[in-house]
């Protein structure tokens, strides 16, 4: 759980900064936020709630770093998590 919370914080920071992976030559509002897809999913799982609205993803550029990593989600699949 601590790991998930950490991920949540880090992803939130990326969203707020809006500059990770962006091109500094372009206007800031046009720069898509780049987020590790795995981290994004883990952040969603960690913030599950019935009163939340879904996260808008149209302005997020997902980076798929774990396409060949079968262990990427081991921590969220662990029986004791």
């Amino acid at each position, binding site marked *: 759980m601590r790991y998930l919370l950490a991920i949540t914080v880090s992803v939130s920071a990326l969203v707020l900064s809006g500059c990770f992976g962006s091109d500094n030559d372009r206007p800031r509002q046009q720069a898509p936020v780049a987020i590790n897809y795995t981290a*994004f*999913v883990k952040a*969603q*799982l*960690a*913030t*599950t*709630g*019935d*009163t*939340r*609205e*879904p*996260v808008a993803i149209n302005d997020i550029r997902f980076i798929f770093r774990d396409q060949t990593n*079968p262990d990427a*989600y081991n921590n*969220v*699949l*662990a*029986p004791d998590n």
Partner: protein
Amino acid sequence: MLSRLTLIPAACAAATLLASAGTMASSHREAPFITGMPKVDGTDFYMFNSYESGRDGYVTLIANYLPLQDAYGGPNYFSLDDDAIYEIHIDNDGNAQENITFRFQFNTERRDLAVDVGGTSVPVPLINIGAVTGQNNDAQNVLESFTVEMVTGDRRTGNVQNLTDAGSGDSSFAKPLDNIGTKSIGDYETYADNFIYDVTIPDCPMPGRVFAGQRQEGFVVNLGEVFDLVALNPLGARDSRRNIIADKNITSLALEVPADCLTGENTVIGGWTTASIRQATVINPAPQGSDTTGSSNAKGPAVKGGAFTQVSRLGSPLVNEVVIGLPDKDRFNSSEPKDDGQFATYVTNPSLPALVEILFGVPAPETPRNDLVTVFLTGVPGVTQLPSVTASEMLRLNTGIPATAAGGQNDLGVAGGDFAGFPNGRRPIDDVVDIALTAAEGFLCGADVNGEAAGGEIGSCGTQDMQVNGGAIVNDGALPNAADYLTRFPYLNTPLPGADNVATAE
């Protein structure tokens, strides 16, 4: 309000047709994304003043999910999604936002029944291992239950209260097994009746009723030929073809609520159903099993989390099926009525009449289709239109118009002179396909539901202010049969059995 119902016959028909003007069939597998999630695929939404004897003053809401069920679909049959929420929303002030939401959530319990095989206890592969009745489910291996919450205000952040059993006070209700067959469940109608609950509804002085379970598909459509480039005789006899989905079952979430507990300052309400799932999913490559495989402590086949995210939406029949263009169907399913302005082009400039013109040479009515906008997005003046309304797509019902008894209902609804039917809400018997086809071809252009009196203008079709194409009744050749429905709650018929073993059991 009722005094306005002294309509000229043509205008009556026009009113009915209007509400469905952008529609043509129901909503089974209507958008690309939802075809991969049948458990949360809303197929039909019914909302009508209850016509069961002794239920005056009640409104029945039925949301159908999980389309085109073949009754023999074992061994798992057709359970709903425990990780989803199924909702029925009511707007009673015309602002296109929900005032009341009834939220269904399901829970599946697996008993892991086992049999002794050579001294070893081995789990069985079936959901029942013997006959099941309403009083004895010992042989039932999988049990579904559900809760119903009433949310007042915003569907996510509003005040949440449980509906409870009027007798026991329990907030959990059992869902019957699907109709596996007559050997497993000998008298399914009697069995299913055990799962109709009288419920206490928060802030409501009178109890209502709830049922969630399998029913026979109530929608009537010549589905195959309609989608095969309208390969039918649209001006032929209304019963010239067959209802091709008559042998299917469906899963219904049915709720009966006192009308006074749904309405605001007016007798008109708008309703629609949605289904939402968690935004994130991780597939488990080694899911939970049993002690037999040493995996009973593992997680399930998928871990889901995040916010509930809407994936299905249904108000009036057939809107997303034949009105909304293919590129926007998934977007419509995720949308809310308050944002329907984005879809206005599909109503003002509908593609269906243009396609019919291409296929049959029948001239399409002129655009913009103000006739369709009026009834489709704002309600029929004097019938289902609130004094102040935000244009939006939903099913609208005037609870002040008395129900028509089951034996006297006309399947053309208002068009047939039956003002308790579609588009004043929608009952199971209403032939919404024929109504919609007829409206699309211009039956309502220039209609006026008030005759000579003011205030009933439906709207023109471009420069055309009278019926186009001679007011022809266009149909799909599939006709509803009143005998195929119950005359009592939950109104949709007992589901077809997966096996009929009556003959072989002797």
